[in-house]
């Protein structure tokens, strides 16, 4: 029963990649030749050869602002079996975090990814914590095998939008 309702909810979720505000997207500790768009953007993320890789050590800090307020339901993180991420902490509406203060706030949700998750099985989040999300910070703390480099092939976010006014759609009313 619960799985049916879970899948029923999931049907109304959309892929939030269309609502990402690309001008504000940031990723700390990424390898410049294997950067965040490889994992996040349509097209690039489908290509398993294009990964997001970490640089100096295995942690990654990804900041994703949205163009409007969204509710986040689930997240898909796809990666290789060994260097794929393991512990993933999500923070909603915290701007400009750094590695030094990432452990000072409690995360909105924490996910320990299993090998199934790395094969695109979605991780369902605590929906109540993500009702009003303007920006999402993803902190990848370590990877499956403990290697020095974490590789991520795809990050997809699923949820719904809150009905906010789309300013671009507003049209001037003609005077009669």
């Amino acid at each position: 029963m619960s799985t049916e309702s879970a899948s029923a909810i999931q049907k109304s979720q959309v892929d939030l990649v269309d609502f990402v505000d690309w001008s504000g997207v940031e990723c700390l500790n990424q390898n410049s030749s294997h950067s965040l768009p490889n994992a996040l953007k349509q097209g690039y993320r489908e290509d398993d050869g294009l990964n997001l890789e970490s640089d100096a050590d295995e942690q990654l800090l990804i900041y994703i602002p949205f163009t409007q307020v969204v509710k986040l339901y689930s997240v898909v993180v796809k990666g290789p079996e060994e260097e794929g991420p393991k512990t993933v902490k999500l923070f909603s509406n915290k701007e400009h975090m750094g590695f030094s203060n990432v452990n000072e706030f409690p995360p909105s949700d924490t996910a320990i990814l299993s090998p199934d998750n790395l094969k695109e099985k979605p991780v369902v989040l605590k929906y109540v914590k993500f009702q009003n999300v303007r920006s999402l910070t993803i902190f990848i703390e370590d990877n499956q095998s403990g290697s020095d480099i974490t590789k991520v092939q795809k990050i997809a976010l699923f949820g719904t939008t809150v009905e906010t006014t789309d300013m671009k759609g507003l049209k001037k009313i003609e005077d009669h």
Partner: protein
Amino acid sequence: MVLEATMICIDNSEWMRNGDYSPCRFQAQADAVNLICGAKTQSNPENTVGILTMAGRGVRVLTTPTTDLGKILACMHDVEMGGEMNMAAGIQVAQLALKHRQNKNQQQRIIVFAGSPVKYDKRVLEVIGKTLKKNSVALDIVNFGEEDGRKPEKLEALLSAVNNNDSSHIVHIPPGPNALSDVLISTPVLNGEGGGSDLPAAAGGNDFDFGVDPNLDPELALALRVSMEEERARQEAAAKRAAEESARQEKVEEPSSNSQDATMVDSADDRASEASGNNTDPVQAITLSMQTPGHNDPSVHDVDMSEATHEEEELAIALQMSMKDESDMSKVLEDQSFVSSVLASLPGVDPNDPSVKDLLASLQGQSESEQKKKEDEPPNDEK
């Protein structure tokens, strides 16, 4: 013109009293700092610079990143020498100061003046470097003053740990007659990625294709570049065409021109690199490339150049070379309009000048004649 927030870490330890840089190391350092602040704020008005001292009673921040040059210069007056430099703490405090910058869009950069000996282990420095890289902070190191054997090594290790895409640099400045600031002018510390736009570039320190500075002679550089590209395209096309035509009717010149074309590609590349390396006369470079033998229509060389001025002559020769593309006539004809638009945009050339018009017409005549020759008719005389 990168938007940057910079923290400058000054060494004000006892070692700075030494006089091997005039008047003393500390003064030379202060001048260099003033120079850097000026350059940073000039290159982008929103850039901020902050200063901290690493020695004395401990690491002390004199100013947090600010755009106010006067405030920065005023702070430099109050600095006193003494104690020992604490580089690790200095860099960490600088990192913290940058983290709390007001404009989060600014890139973070730390400039460290390392005048006294470095007492840390290489490993400690590498860890510091990695933390900086992880937080995308760039680091510039100015190594001057005390020279002990291990110092340059350690600083290089720090640099390689931080360096991400060549955004970080190290400069070694031995004591000498030149002031610290003068030496710094020509380094990437002041010029971003080398080749400063605001400060006059050091003479002979620039590498350009063809040995011609585009700032000094833009039309010549443009013409050379255009002809080089056209030449390369023509080479490829000629090689393809030669392969096809070898199965077709025999042209006696084909095999010889094929091999000559192949050698010409190599030799043209060599010459181009030679020319840029030795800064040879650009006219020489053009004539060198012109000297390669074995083209199907040597008559094309004869263009009436007597009316053209010297500059136009070089331009015309370069254009000729590009006009020799036999196989891709449509491309050439398009280039014709491109050529005239290029000529029109050049400052020294007036398209209505009769000599220029003659040139253009003669080039057009050549291309027509090449086209006819392609159909195995004898070449027409140029007009």
